[in-house]
């Protein structure tokens, strides 16, 4: 799925993120909770106010996990294996929310991994402006799809 060029572009973008991991993570989650309120149902125990420590902490975790995936683009399945188990067996984020590459239509629910991907990409676009080129956009979208696919592997 990811070509050699895609992998290079993803790594390039990720270099720009390192050093801002907490900010990128927090903003991604904040945007996701604002635009897709249903995602808040997985965080009833969180203080979801702007700037909350919990959002910053969790955002940092999410971005770190994605960063690990970026370092292991040739072996995403293995790199994300633990996280895949966690999401399937412990967190049980609704799998209808986990299909790679997007939702199934207008009336049906959006897939939460697609929602996270969209919000992360908005954050990258906000910060990179026109440097978030179509080629980079495409590579990141493919990467997030691949991550979603791995996370969904263990569901059933």
């Amino acid at each position, binding site marked *: 799925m990811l070509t050699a060029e895609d992998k290079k572009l993803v790594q390039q973008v990720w270099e720009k993120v390192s050093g801002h991991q907490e900010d990128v993570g927090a*903003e991604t989650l*904040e*945007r996701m909770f*604002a*635009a*897709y309120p249903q995602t808040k149902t997985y965080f009833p125990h969180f203080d979801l106010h702007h700037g909350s420590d919990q959002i910053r902490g969790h955002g940092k975790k999410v971005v770190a996990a994605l960063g690990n995936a970026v370092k292991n683009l040739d072996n995403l399945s293995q790199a994300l294996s633990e996280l895949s188990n966690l999401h399937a067996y412990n967190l049980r984020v609704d799998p209808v929310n986990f299909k790679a590459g*997007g*939702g*199934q*239509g*207008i*009336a049906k629910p959006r897939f939460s991994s697609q929602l996270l991907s*969209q*919000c992360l*990409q*908005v*954050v990258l*676009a*906000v*910060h*990179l*402006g*026109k440097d*978030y080129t*179509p*080629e980079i*956009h*495409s590579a990141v*979208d493919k990467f997030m799809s691949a991550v979603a696919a791995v996370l969904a592997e263990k569901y059933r």
Partner: protein
Amino acid sequence: MVHWSAEEKQLISSVWGKVNVEECGAEALARLLIVYPWTQRFFDNFGNLSSPTAIIGNPKVRAHGKKVLTSFGDAIKNLDNLKATYSKLSELHCDKLHVDPENFRLLGDILIIVLAAHFGKDFTPSCQATWQKLVGVVAHALAHKYH
């Protein structure tokens, strides 16, 4: 019928007022064709779509992108009457163009990313939330007459 708060209407019109419809439309359509290459299936007669550079520079892509986003502007002028506004367009996309409505959602998400890249921090989380709602509702209206 979809309800729009005063704040949402304000967020929509303040962003829209600053949008260069031709540029944004062209960019959004080009990115759709680049990021989701299967969407090229609807544009066989557009000529060279062989690379991102070709797509971005393709005059038919630019023109059509402008057309699409101009139509989006009609939606914004008719927020309280979207289904009726898009009734004929919906029939067209189903009966003549045979476009899977999933593509409307993809284009909506891409448009949001284009706006984010253009407006930077001004495209706040509230802004994004309102616009995600808008593109969702537009996509829904466009799919409404499908059978």
